[in-house]
């Protein structure tokens, strides 16, 4: 092949690579743009603070926002402590044996399990076996199980990243292992742990399939009074009005999509910011 032809081939190939990148990027921007454009009109104080009326045709989505907020909180309360404890155990205490290997493999694969399977799992365990019923509690536990893969992995990585010298310095002044973990390792690992927790909350806010199975309700004009109540949630509300209930004004549906997207993405951005801030702080040391 002549040099010219090889250059032309390269040009064409790079063109294909760039085109592919654009195919990935442009739809994302278009989707965000369209949701913003169509949804912004529906957003007003009434939409955000009122309960739905006339089968979702009028009124607002306040109970769904509150329900999603409770779910995120519930997921955090359950998945964060368990995730951190598991992370501490796996990095500081667990021996290098087959059990640890098995646990690690299970955690990695936990992340790849389809969300609907978590729904079935939650239905079998929390709703039926523990008799929590179709409730906020069941849904929080189910989402927390799903979030565990993430909180454990991020906690473990954050703890592993704490330099050995810190631990040795602490042990050298006569602290016990637990005191070292508690006062030296965990504070250092905190930003990483929080990043994981925030990401887990963002996932919990957007997840639909599991809560569809274990207790989300369409149109519940009041807020849940206890953890055993059914609840509304933004993603489930979006699913029902978009796929099942005819006659809902388009603007309302786009508005729900916009609110959901803002909630989920703002938590993602928050996680990224925490990560970036800690990185610059480490460098400036």
């Amino acid at each position, binding site marked *: 092949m002549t040099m010219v032809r*090889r250059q032309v081939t390269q040009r064409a190939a790079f063109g294909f690579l760039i085109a592919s990148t654009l195919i990935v990027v442009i739809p994302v921007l278009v989707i965000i743009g369209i949701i913003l454009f169509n949804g912004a009109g529906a957003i007003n104080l009434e939409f955000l603070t009122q309960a739905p009326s006339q089968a979702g045709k009028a009124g607002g989505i306040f109970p769904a926002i509150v329900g999603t907020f409770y779910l995120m909180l519930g997921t955090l309360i359950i998945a964060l402590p368990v995730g951190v404890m598991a992370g501490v155990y796996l990095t500081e205490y667990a021996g290098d044996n087959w059990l640890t290997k098995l646990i690690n493999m299970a955690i*990695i694969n936990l992340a790849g399990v389809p969300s*609907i399977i978590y729904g079935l799992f939650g239905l079998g365990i929390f709703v039926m076996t523990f008799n929590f019923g179709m409730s906020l509690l069941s849904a929080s536990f189910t989402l927390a199980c799903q979030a565990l893969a993430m909180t454990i992995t991020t906690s473990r990585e954050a703890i592993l990243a704490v330099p050995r010298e810190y631990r040795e310095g602490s042990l050298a002044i006569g602290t016990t292992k637990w005191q070292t973990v508690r006062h030296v390792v965990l504070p250092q690992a905190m930003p990483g742990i929080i990043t994981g927790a925030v990401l887990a909350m963002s996932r919990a806010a957007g997840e639909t*399939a599991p809560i569809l199975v274990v207790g989300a309700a369409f149109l519940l004009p009041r807020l849940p009074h206890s953890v055993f109540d059914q609840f509304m949630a933004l*993603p489930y509300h*979006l699913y029902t009005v978009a796929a099942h209930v005819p006659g809902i004004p388009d603007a309302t549906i786009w508005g729900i999509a916009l609110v959901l997207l803002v909630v*989920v993405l703002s938590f993602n951005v928050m996680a990224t910011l925490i990560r970036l801030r800690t990185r610059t702080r480490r460098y400036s040391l």
Partner: protein
Amino acid sequence: MLLFKEGTPIFLDTPPWEFLFGTRWYPVSEPPTFGILPFFVSTLWVTLVATLIAVPVGIACAAYLAEVAPDKVRETVKPIIEILAGFPSVVMGFIGLMLLSPAIKSMFNLNTGLTGLTAGIMLAMMSLPIIVSVSEDALRAVPDSFRQGSYALGATRWETIRHVSIPAALSGIAAAIMLGVGRAIGETMTVLMVAGGALAVPVSPTEPMMPMTAAIASGIGNAVRGGLQYQALFAIGLILFLITLAVNLVADRVLERQKRKFTR
């Protein structure tokens, strides 16, 4: 996770053979029949469509980001891809419903735009982030000395990417593809909303269909707890779980091997 005991009693009623290969799913008729072939074939169709789109595009995008793009472009593109990864699946389903399905309907002159093809395209978008990021990591792990050796032999940058970088990163890219496929198989809300939900065994991607995840999600609300349909749905869940587990385990193995390859 071994609670999938719930799903095995169905095989006392319907032999596994009929359950897997039966073409009729009539859970409420008398007597009920449970054949999951329509769901299984639907899952194959949507996954196939998603893979055909997402794999070439995803690898090309990863190659661009890892090998060609200037730092500035990469730093703009990567957050956008991360945003895509953060999109809730129900939002993607909604977008497919509102924007893509009318386009598909008029493009192929169909009665409905809710088809396996529509779902496949949306799934392709959803599996792209993982394919791009894992492939990009794999390409970045290829030592620079490989590339320099190739340039020294007179190869152009493209020839180096094609004949050196991509082959060297191949196992990582393969793992990326598997993870992407795993995600497409397990995705629920999007296919539930846009695949159309028909119960026949689909023979072409432009038909409405109901993948396994959608079958579980749409049936579980009406199933009597502990009843036959309930058990059958758990059995579908069990099969789905085993498929995704296998895909992820293999991908994990391959990634580990790739990592070891360059740390020597």
